[in-house]
């Protein structure tokens, strides 16, 4: 079964400015760039990497090198490590 990802329910607030954002989870702050922000906003409902790749390509175009899914997986891994994204069944 393909993994799906969802914004962590402990995220208290996201403040967006100039294409970047600050994410407040419990008492920790994370500053995220445009790609991560697009992923977080899309993950207000469960998303697969394939779905996220489509959303990001539509928003930013295809990456100049490599597959979009690879770029998305890398960002998703970082967001999981920060615990602002969670994997759901």
């Amino acid at each position: 079964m393909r993994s799906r990802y969802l914004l962590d329910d402990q995220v208290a607030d996201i403040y967006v400015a100039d294409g970047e954002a600050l994410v407040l989870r419990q008492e920790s702050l994370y500053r995220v760039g445009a790609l991560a922000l697009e992923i977080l906003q899309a993950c207000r409902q469960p998303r697969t990497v394939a779905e996220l790749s489509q959303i990001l390509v539509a928003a930013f175009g295809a990456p100049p090198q490599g597959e979009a899914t690879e770029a998305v997986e890398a960002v998703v891994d970082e967001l999981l490590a920060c615990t602002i994204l969670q994997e759901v069944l």
Partner: protein
Amino acid sequence: MAVSTEEVVEELTLHGLGTSVDLQVLAGDEGPQADAALVARIRSAWVRCLTPAPGQPRPFPCHTRTVAHDTDKDLGLGRPVQVRHGAQVSPSPDDALSMLVASGDQHVLMQQITQRVTRALILSQRGRLLMLHASGVSDPDTGRSIIFVAPGGTGKTTLARALGKRWSYLSDETIGIDAARQIWAYPKPLSIRGGKAYKDEVAPSALGLLPQSAPAQVSKIIVLDRRGGVDTPTFEPLGTLEAMEVMGPESSSLAALDRGLHVFADVLEHTGGAERWRYTEHTDLIARAEHILAGEV
């Protein structure tokens, strides 16, 4: 107020951050004279917190706030801080939520009271106020205010002390701000190390600091960055994201505040954005701070 099983020799209510906390002085090991001396010392140091600050906006009804969450109970919300001059006694099973501080050393006791009262006030205002680890002063007539956000030991108290002889002292530790950018002061005793191993808790009046006399509104938020070797201080504007990122570690219970980042950003944007002041000597900052307080910047 909760009833202690030990003899209560004095009960005080300390006000700050738009709320209050009860404090009970319990009979100690040294006898009534030592207890009376402790009470006098507490009253003297906390004189500005014995009544709500004049000119404060409408108070929150927090003093009688219902304790609704188990987590709040666990943290002791709503219970009095208890002080005892003498050895710590083991709490009974019924007193598992004790807020007791005890020491045979009055210096230690006074520091612990400050820490415990501050924590209790902050807990009481969780989810109500944006609370920053900051000192602040305000114009006694207009209420224009400047607040200095910084980690401990990097200049907050020094600046409040220097500016507070001409401008109203709001706090040297924690400033509460509501969504309308009103400041909820906490004019606690100043914690001054003065080259000693411990900090003295000194009444603002003993240092000649002016009391608050008008409702205070945030006019500017400053992030202090004190470091050695800065001959000429720099005053750097911070973007909203960067300012919140820098000040995040100096906030309390930000996640408990509904849309806390948006409230914080709104305060910053309505006050012209934060600045980072990099400096070595606090005397280099006074002129610019006074320009801001006077509305000239």
